[in-house]
């Protein structure tokens, strides 16, 4: 394991890139805070912008910190596909019921 791991990390990793990723995450967080607190956009647009920034941050965390970028393609696709499929299936149940509540009205 020790040799294997050393092999892996010398192959495509350097500590510097993790510091860059960390810096990028902090900068993106600072942008989010400024956007959120200054109310630069209207609420729906703000939600979209913040979600896009969150997805970029999560991609950096998954890809680099969780090392998925360096896993085999089959592993990457298996995870992305299975989680996405589960979310889609979950929302098939969620949205019809959520719409029913809206039609009935909430008091």
């Amino acid at each position, binding site marked *: *394991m*020790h*040799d*294997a*791991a*050393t*092999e*892996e*990390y010398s192959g495509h990793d350097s*500590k510097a890139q*993790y*510091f860059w990723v*960390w810096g990028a*995450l*902090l900068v993106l*967080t600072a942008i*989010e*805070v400024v*956007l*959120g*607190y200054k*109310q630069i956009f209207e*609420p729906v647009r*703000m*939600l979209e912008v*913040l*979600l896009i*920034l*969150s997805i970029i*941050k*999560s991609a950096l*965390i*998954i890809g680099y*910190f*969780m*090392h998925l970028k*360096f*896993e*085999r393609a*089959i*592993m990457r696709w*298996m*995870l992305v596909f*299975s*989680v996405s499929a*589960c*979310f889609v299936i*979950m*929302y098939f149940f*969620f949205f019809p019921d*959520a719409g029913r509540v*809206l039609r009935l009205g*909430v008091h």
Partner: protein
Amino acid sequence: MADATLQHDAVGHGTPGEFEAPLFGAYSKKVGMWLFLASDSLTFGALLVAFCYVRSYTDWPTPFHVQSIINSTIMTGCLLSSSLTMVMGVFAAQRGDRAWTRNWLFATMAFGTAFIVLHGMEWTKLIGEGLTLPIFPKPATPAVGEMADISKNTPQFAATFFGLTAMHMLHVTVGVMYLGVIAFRKWFLPVIGVLWLVGYLLIPSDNVFHYGIHVLLIGLIVASVILSLKSKDYDAQDVEVAGLYWHFVDLVWMFIFPLVYLLSTKIVG
């Protein structure tokens, strides 16, 4: 990593874990953790979608002043920094440096603990101002003001806020204990025990964490059972798998922070 593991599998069975059949080019513990994280992401995904849905049809309050935003931003910085120290810990473990593995894991735990403490202080402040749930301990004198009005008029706000953040705080607490067991093994058990006892005795009984601290007791029991069943020295694979869990906790907060805090900031000017 994957290729190297395959080579090891073919030639040697000397170290526990290396004889496991590779699945998707990774050792089975890593695949197992990824599958767990995939299922846990659905839990948080459902909670976050429900939160967005609830806030979309009600007149959602925006009560978080600059103090709360600064506090939650520092908490975000703690978690992001803890991910970096966790990566350094994995590096150290994989080059066989046990001392620095412990040091980096300890740094990660320190950032995680700072997050929990800051979050606990935030909760206590909000509850003191009147943002509360029926199941929380009742204060001697009921609070009045903006937060108390929100609890009364829009109870969904307190329910979703405390539900989401409690779920995440529980994950962070479990993560800190997980890393403690990986880094210090049985020596970490008395630390959990002392923290639980001191916390229980020092936190006032009208504070929600007087009861929440029992999570540590449950963690102590679970960790004791695990360590009694498998008291070996944890290796680099275990550190990497623990790191996956820790990064996931960080990842979830990247969605909770903007959705719960930043979209509920007090509008100024």
